[in-house]
């Protein structure tokens, strides 16, 4: 049981972005991927979810042994993969509650519906954890939300869908410190021995709140350095440029 990424190569037309990426995330583990802009961090998250802009040229992604690269975007989600988007999209006219109900219903056998009472009970409990006002249930998905509200909404979806593996793509971007604490608390509440996390971040700050077990540095489409929590602390102390420099040497 694990999310295994094996020698993954992916490109957009004319440019290879992931160049043989290897990574294994076991349930219960929190991995962090750090790297400079353009290293392929966000590409990795999109490729794992099946975004059509990216073409996988070789490699495998196994979710508990099953290759998900042949699956449609929605099937990957139902198989247990979750992406908290860096830039969550606005869906005008679709209420948050209806959206979540549709997502949960998609996981049930055809013809079955979710129990509305249980659904709202769970939804409100999760929203309370994220200090989200009840009015967010009837508001259109992400429409007119502030940056912080959008990120909280992503974590709310994670909490409701309870995936096996969750990827957080720059969840800290655009958050002030209070929002960062709330979002991190939500993520930490979801940590469990049955769930793996991949936290993608540009800055080390987030990792003070979501403490990783393993830290990777991504550079030019490959993981060039892997360490423990101390690697992120080292980053904090010595700056990000230094790591980039060292990894250039390591990759050379």
């Amino acid at each position, binding site marked *: 049981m694990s999310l295994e990424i094996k020698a993954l190569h992916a490109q957009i037309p004319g440019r290879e972005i992931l160049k043989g990426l290897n990574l294994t995330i076991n349930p219960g583990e929190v991995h962090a991927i750090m790297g400079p802009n353009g290293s392929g961090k966000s590409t990795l998250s999109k490729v794992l*979810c099946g*975004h*059509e802009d990216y073409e996988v040229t070789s490699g495998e992604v196994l979710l508990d042994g099953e290759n998900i690269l042949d699956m*449609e*975007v*929605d*099937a990957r*989600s*139902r198989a247990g993969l979750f*992406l908290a*988007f860096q830039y*969550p*999209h*606005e*869906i*005008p*006219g*679709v209420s948050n509650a*209806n*959206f979540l109900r*549709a*997502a949960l219903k*998609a*996981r049930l056998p055809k013809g079955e519906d979710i129990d509305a009472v249980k659904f709202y009970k769970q939804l409100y409990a999760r929203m309370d954890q994220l200090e989200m006002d009840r009015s967010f249930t009837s508001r*259109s998905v992400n429409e007119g939300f502030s940056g912080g509200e959008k990120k909280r909404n992503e974590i709310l*979806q994670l909490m409701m*869908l309870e995936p096996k593996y969750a990827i957080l793509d720059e969840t800290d971007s655009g958050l002030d410190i209070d929002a960062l604490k709330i979002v991190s608390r939500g993520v930490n509440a979801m940590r469990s021995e049955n769930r793996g996390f991949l936290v993608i971040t540009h800055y080390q700050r987030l990792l003070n709140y979501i403490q990783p077990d393993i830290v990777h540095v991504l550079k030019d489409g490959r993981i060039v350095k892997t360490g423990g929590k101390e690697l992120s602390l080292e980053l904090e102390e010595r700056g990000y440029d230094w790591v980039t420099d060292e990894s250039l040497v390591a990759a050379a």
Partner: protein
Amino acid sequence: MSAEAISEQPSPSGLEITVPVRDEKNTPGWFLARAEAAWTEFQKLPMPGIKDENWRYSSSKKIELADHTPAAAPTAANTAAALAATQGLKERAARFVFVNDVLVESDTANLPAGVVCVTFADALRDHGEVLKQHFMQREMTLGSAKFAALHLAHVKAGVVVIVPKNVAIEKPVEIFHWVVGDHAAIFPHTLVVTGDNAEVSVVDHYRSLEGEGGLSIAIADLVGGRGSKITYAACQELADDAQALHLSSIVAGRDAAVKSFQVQLGASFSRSESVSDLIGEGSRSDMLSVSLPIGEQVVDQRTLQNHKAPHASSDLLYKNALYGKSRSIFSGLITVDEGAHYTDAYQTCRNLLNSNEAEATSLPGLEISADQVKCSHGATSGPISDEELFYLKARGISDSESRKLIIEGFLAGVIERFGNGELLDTLVARIDEKLERAE
């Protein structure tokens, strides 16, 4: 000459549709004269040609008069079937059910005292003065003068609602028009007149029972008196091979607010022409529409927001969600007369294309001859955003279900502006049913 003898003659315009037959004894003379004049006008007027600006990107040939005859009186079986299929609002002030322009059921028990809510025929007999003043008084300038003349010549069904001063009818008046039989044509009319500070809500349904290629040429006259409120919905759900024409004329008096909603779900060709004349200071007209064409359906929409008084506002929002090889044509004009200062007029048409083969055409226009005017018009047309779709699918929702959610959301913006309550829920349910069919 008997009616049958007349109907066997080809009419002078080469159309098979027959000269109207009226009960001359029970119809007021003034109306007979108007109907006869209209029949003459209908025959005189040419069919709008392809060069007619008001029919650009469309074609009057879509209305196949040659194939149609006025609908025959319904059989007992027709009536029973229509009544069984009429699922109206639970909370209503009144309900009328017509089949082929014949009244088969009415319920007006819940109307407040003083309100006139009667069939067109009864109104002709008992409220001739109101009809003389308000029935089809506007020249048809958006392209369908010929069809309006045909309507006037044939009209015998529909409902007239006259709400006296300071009376509010809280629940809607609901009217069903069923058409049955091959190539049957109906000509329903709705006239709503409100006194000062009166309020009323009226909904017309146009539906097919059975038979091929029905035709409905319907007209609604909405006349809002000082400070009054009219809410009106025309919900067209005729069979896929039917043709529908709906012409509405809105007159908003001082501080009156009229909200009208066109819901176009049926017919192979449906055309709506909606005119708002803002004649009173501080008047307001909200003009709303949703359509959901599928297959090869064509939706043709022509609008005019005609500002004739200062401090009036009009706000038009039309949304079309297109599937398959369907087409929509929107042509809208805002005119602000000299002296209609401080006008606020907005016009938005948005088209969501759910297929590469669907086609939406928008022709917005403005003519402003006053000062201190706030006007805007905008038309957009495009496919469902890939990123919105990706976002929903990334939560495990299937492609088709995601598209459905997005389209419902797209249309919800208009529907919510119309209001809420049972009527709204009913309309949403009908739209959902059509969406299911579109998949």
